[in-house]
């Protein structure tokens, strides 16, 4: 199943491919840079609530698309016999080719359905009741291939993901050992910072963000009041001046404040 998600992740413009069960529990996941398992697990709850609500009026929904200012969330419903209704979620950016994506999602959905229904013996399947066991599986096998373009971010991310996944670097309002954000807007800003920084420095971006937050907000949860100071700290990590300016500009966009 991880291989099927990797196939989607290899498409240009896809930054994360996640499979949730009907309750929003993460069954499988592949993601670039900041879209690590912890972040995707966090999304499962609100996503399941939204889908539950949608199903009141649109019980037969098959696919959905949420268009945001800085990207797109594509959802596809997978009705499986053994795992019940599941949802394939893809996080994409503006470089996604929607026509190619539609075909790829259909193909991958069929493969995932087969894996969920008949793949009880396959290695990394999301079998109901075994979601916790999935957590102990190596999420990123070393054999995973980088993106088709062999992008720096994508290929570097493959090697360092286990470090990111195990380092407790989720910036939530509840803390949890990593950086703590004062509110949702602050957490969103940190995610944007890490995502934009990853374009220039690779998957170490999240660690750089954490270190920078500790410097600009020692002993305090990060708030948007410190966003300028944080942006300057992070920009200093980028050697190339045009890249540095592009990074700062990206953070000033609506999604990046």
């Amino acid at each position, binding site marked *: 199943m991880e291989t099927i998600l990797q196939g989607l992740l290899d498409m240009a413009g896809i930054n*994360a491919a996640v499979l949730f069960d009907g309750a929003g529990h993460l069954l499988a996941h592949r993601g670039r840079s*900041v*879209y690590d398992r912890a*972040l995707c697990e*966090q*999304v499962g709850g*609100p*996503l399941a*609530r*939204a889908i539950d*609500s*949608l199903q*009141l*009026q*649109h*019980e*037969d*929904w*098959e*696919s*959905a*698309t*949420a*268009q*945001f*200012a*800085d*990207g*797109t*969330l594509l959802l596809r419903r997978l009705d499986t016999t053994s795992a019940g209704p599941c949802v394939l979620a893809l*996080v994409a950016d503006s470089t996604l080719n929607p026509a190619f994506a539609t075909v790829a999602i259909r193909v991958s959905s069929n493969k995932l359905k087969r894996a969920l229904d008949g793949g009880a013996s396959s290695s990394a399947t999301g079998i109901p009741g075994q979601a916790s066991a999935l957590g102990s599986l190596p999420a990123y096998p070393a054999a995973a291939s980088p993106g088709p373009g062999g992008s720096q971010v994508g290929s570097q991310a493959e090697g360092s993901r286990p470090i990111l996944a195990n380092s407790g670097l989720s910036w939530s309002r509840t803390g949890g050992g990593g950086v703590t954000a004062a509110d*949702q*807007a602050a*957490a*969103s800003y940190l*995610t*944007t910072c*890490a*995502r934009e920084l990853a374009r220039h420095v690779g998957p170490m971006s999240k660690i750089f963000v954490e270190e920078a937050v500790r410097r600009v907000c020692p002993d305090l949860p990060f708030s948007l009041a410190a966003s300028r100071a944080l942006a300057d700290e992070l920009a200093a990590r980028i050697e190339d001046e045009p890249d540095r300016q592009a990074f700062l500009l990206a953070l000033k*966009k*609506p*999604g*990046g404040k």
Partner: protein
Amino acid sequence: MTDLETVAGIAGVDAAVLGDLEGTFLGAMRTSDGETIAAEMGFVGSTLLEVGELLGLGALCTFSLAGRANACLLVVRPQSLITALIAPPQSLGPVERAVDTAFQEWT
């Protein structure tokens, strides 16, 4: 012409509902179920905003959904949400493009 009338007037749109992210019902055309739809789509819109913030995707602009029998398009405006109920679902693409054109004219 109001935003609601504009959306309701697009070919393929069966009905349209005006509400906000709080689920408040503000108006409807060609449906008697506007209050329920406004509440549902208000909740969906606000929950998706939360998802977008978590993923660092910024503000929600539109949300579309397609099923076997019909489709639905949610358009987020500065102070309101407009829901378009679409049938058949194959009309979703043309309706999205028409709304997009109208949206550009609004801004």
